[in-house]
């Protein structure tokens, strides 16, 4: 079987599974978990473009998720704007934020860029806490209405699940197109050698700015969707810990891949809800696993870097080439 064909089969099967899941799973809580998987996937697809392909690290992406969430929440709940308009606005605001964060990336690399983006994330969290006239401060922002277009209100778990995964689908199509074409090659070239890319005529500034803008927009849309699905947001959701989790998912998934990070998002997000998913598991076992979640992520990252530097995607590629 050619790897192209194997790929196509995997894509068709997973698309069908994801699309038809709500017809099989009726449990509201489980559907909510799978919706959260989709929201995380949206952020991680963006980070994969930025980090896995273009090689630009960000430890501040939760800041964009928050920015999108608060923008949408404020526009819909306080200014009574239509939901769809609020989504577009949240996308635009976070795109602008991505452009701002791209500026340090033009001068900084590696650890220094990591520090700058970390600072950005911390600043955003601080902003969410302090700007309480907009955000509600540490008490959070409640009463965000469900997504609606005209008279159509999406408020059942099934509808929300399909909404989120449709957006993920569009994002994946877009990302897949980018990485398979000229801009994607430019991103990988940048990752390989920035100077070499410049010498080959790649507009390095443009590639970096576009990668930051696109990944920030995906994160912002994820936040905006979260706000209108859950109805309540607070600064504790958009911390550096969340940024690290997103980056961990992308790293464990593997660089130069979209499928790997997608798989890693599914596995790592489900880990959080282990007790709800595995029927036999005792409450205490699940709690222990959840308590050590950050440590599990950390260990997983170390293991990936030491033993499988190209992550889940690399393991898949290796099995394909040895079979």
């Amino acid at each position: 079987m050619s790897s192209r064909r194997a790929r196509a089969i995997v894509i068709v099967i997973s698309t069908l599974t994801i699309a038809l899941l709500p017809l099989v799973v009726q449990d509201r809580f489980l559907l909510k978990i799978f919706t959260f998987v989709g929201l995380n996937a949206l952020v991680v697809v963006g980070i994969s473009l930025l980090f896995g392909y273009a090689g630009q690290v960000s430890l501040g992406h939760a800041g964009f998720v928050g920015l999108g969430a608060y923008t949408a929440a404020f526009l819909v709940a306080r200014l009574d704007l239509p939901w769809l308009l609020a989504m577009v606005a949240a996308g635009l605001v976070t795109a602008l934020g991505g452009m701002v964060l791209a500026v340090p990336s033009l001068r900084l690399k590696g650890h220094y860029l990591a520090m700058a983006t970390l600072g950005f994330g911390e600043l955003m969290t601080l902003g969410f806490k302090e700007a309480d006239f907009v955000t509600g401060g540490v008490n959070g922002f409640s009463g965000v209405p469900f997504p609606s277009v005209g008279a159509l209100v999406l408020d059942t778990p099934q509808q929300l699940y399909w909404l989120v995964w449709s957006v993920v689908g569009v994002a994946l199509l877009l990302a897949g197109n980018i990485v398979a074409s000229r801009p994607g090659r430019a991103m990988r070239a940048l990752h390989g050698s920035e100077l070499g890319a410049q010498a080959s005529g790649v507009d390095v500034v443009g590639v970096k700015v576009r990668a930051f803008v696109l990944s920030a927009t995906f994160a912002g849309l994820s936040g905006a969707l979260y706000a209108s699905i859950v109805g309540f947001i607070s600064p504790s959701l958009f911390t550096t810990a969340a940024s690290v989790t997103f980056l961990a998912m992308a790293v464990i998934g593997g660089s130069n891949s979209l499928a790997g990070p997608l798989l890693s998002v599914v596995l790592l997000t489900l880990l959080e809800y282990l007790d709800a998913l595995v029927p036999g598991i005792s409450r205490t076992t699940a709690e222990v696993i959840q308590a050590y979640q950050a440590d599990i992520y950390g260990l997983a990252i170390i293991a990936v870097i030491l033993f499988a530097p190209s992550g889940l995607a690399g393991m898949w590629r290796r099995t394909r080439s040895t079979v």
Partner: protein
Amino acid sequence: MTNSHLLELHNVDSGYGRTQVLRDVSLHVDAGELVALIGSNGAGKSTLLKTIVGLLRASSGELNLDGNSITHMTPEKLVRRGVALVPEGRLLFGPMTVRENLELGAYSAGARRGTAVKDGLRRVFELFPVLSERASQHAETLSGGEQQMLAVARALMSSPTLLLLDEPSLGLAPRVIAEIFSALEVLRREGMTILLVEQDARLALKHADRGYVMRTGEIVLEGAASDLLTDESVRTIYLGLLKGEGSA
């Protein structure tokens, strides 16, 4: 006079941030020439190449290409104008295949990329047949010599009129060096203009029409390559020969 030179530098100062490296550098390269730029480590040869392709900005002075100013042009614009650099240390895209590296070389062709890639590939595979055998291999798995060939080939993919090479012989076996220089000879016969930076002064001067000698950021000597090869100071300082010793 201006129109006869393909590349022209007038009193160029350049460097990194506030550290000035190049002082008052003037040189020219005519169409079809192979010009060698020699000098010891730290003389400013790479800085000069980086300034020409726009990776560094000249703090003063003027750079002209074909009579038009390119003084503050970005690297990607210069690639489109036909200036290509084979950087020191090759700077290939390691985890990408040979073919992908070459396709990136044609990045600047934009919408015309389809035909540019096809023609370019045919040309570079003819020049370096080993690359066509390795087309689907990752660049990082190539030998040093093959990597250097790929670096040259990648630069050629943008169909340059002026090719700049930074230390193409560095760390390579003599047989491989000979292969790369014979490829440069082929390019020359096809009319390519080449500016070559080399630490191996004798090798460079043997292939060049003219040469410039750099020391601590300045051009200290220029002339026909054959004259430089026999020049007493060049011989003792850069060719490592003693007085009266014959040229090899």
